[in-house]
């Protein structure tokens, strides 16, 4: 099992969700994040003081999947989030040792979906 973490542009969230759903991936956890990457920040000015904002608004998606779903998930995320412009985001993949469904106590691959 793997845990996939994707950081995407906020306004792409609904596209990514749709792309995932059409690949039968419906479970995920979403958080608000601020990201610093290749995408340049911008300048704000508050009462005469200019400052650079380089933590840009991003959305962070976590999806736990079984191994055979990994590539499908990655592809779906790319499909939904890609515009070809800097700032499109990144995907990280990590090993998942275990997964438990609280309601039933199911463990492992059974619990993931």
């Amino acid at each position: 099992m793997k845990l996939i973490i994707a950081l995407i542009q906020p306004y792409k969230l609904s596209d990514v969700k749709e792309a995932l759903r059409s690949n039968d991936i419906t479970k995920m956890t979403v958080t608000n994040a601020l990201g610093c990457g290749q995408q340049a920040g911008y300048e704000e000015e508050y009462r005469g003081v200019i400052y650079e904002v380089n933590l840009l608004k991003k959305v962070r998606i976590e999806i736990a999947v079984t191994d055979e779903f990994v590539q499908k998930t990655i592809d779906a995320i790319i499909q939904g989030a890609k515009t070809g412009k800097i700032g499109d985001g990144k995907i990280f993949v990590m090993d998942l040792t275990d997964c438990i469904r609280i309601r039933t106590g199911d463990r492992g691959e059974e619990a993931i979906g």
Partner: protein
Amino acid sequence: MVKKLLCLFFAVGFVLAQSTVGFAEEASVAAQAMFTVNNTWMLVATFLVFIMHLGFATLEAGLTQAKNTVNILFKNTSIIAIGLLTYAICGFNLMYPGDFSIGQFFGFSGFGIASPEGAAGLIEYADGNYTYWTDFLFQAMFAATAATIVSGAVAERIKLSSFLIFTTIYVGLVYPIVGSWKWGGGWLDQMGFYDFAGSTLVHSVGGWAALVGVILLGPRLGKYFKGGIRPILGHNLPLVTIGVFLLWLGWFGFNGGSVLSADPGLVSLVFVTTSLAAAAGIIGAMITSWIAQKKPDLTMILNGCLAGLVGITAGADTVTVCSAAIIGGIAGVIVVFSVIFFDRIKIDDPVGAISVHLVCGIWGTLAVGIFSTNPDHSFMTQLIGVAAYGAFCLASAFAIFGGLKAVMGIRVTEIEERQGLDISEHGMEAYGGFQIFTTQ
């Protein structure tokens, strides 16, 4: 005897003379007191109309996204400043020209404002009802309202600079010119058209421009997609509620001040018709929303309240209190369907300004033809008035917005819209430190 008589006579005469003098003085004290109370009421009405601008600012800010809040507040703060200054420079003299120079359609009595000297600017100015300065400021507060109405409808995508230019022209020229047709004593006034406090002269005038603006701008990004409508949620409903209550408050001055004196009978009647129409607007919208939508929608009853207020504005002094409640209630029903209707036909108006001010402004103006207790008011004349204002305002707004679109563009870029106008137009956030989801 005769001497005594004479003495007595002169004594009496003296008392008489004295008291006549004193009496003349006192007479003027009474007239002066009346003048003072009339003028004071008009000044109170003036500050009440002023506070409507805050109402509009918070209403519009609350019904749009957090990322465009600074922009909305900036626009609304600018509008009142632009409105007052242009009205001082030319608006007041365009709207109340005294003499018309082109038919009964257009007149202009010169730039700038200056009070006539002495009593002519004071007690004699309006038969003891208010001074020249009061007249100017009360009318100036009205003027800015028309532009504020537009601001909400075009929110979240219009370019700031274009909007400010539009406002300057619309408030400085269009509003006072069409205003003169009725309130300046122009052709519609002479035809018997009636619009007590401006369902048409203020609200529809703003509403027509809002409609044009929305059409020329197009909908906000992501609002409509193949076959569907994606709602773009307002970010702060307490602000919206504050706005609506402040607008209602201001309406006591808007309608109550349009009596143009403190006449107890009329002002108090207008207070009652205004309040009952607002209340009925809320209830009308509540029932409609509860039935048409599955659950009662706060933004709809707030729009319903405003709808009732806009609806009663044309006839607040000339309908019975019962008719007032009916007019308001119907406005409340209309506004719900109107908001949904405009959304369906892809006229994207984030705050419902077109439904509230244009649609209910028309309804209110026509309602005078139906409910007025004054037999001189006729439905046909009202309809002609509505049409005349519609034609002129649509044409003017198309000319101005169209011109701006051709010359400098009226819409921000896609990236700017996505980022939010607060950052792209002002380099600033409205809620520093708050964590806000901007997935739209």
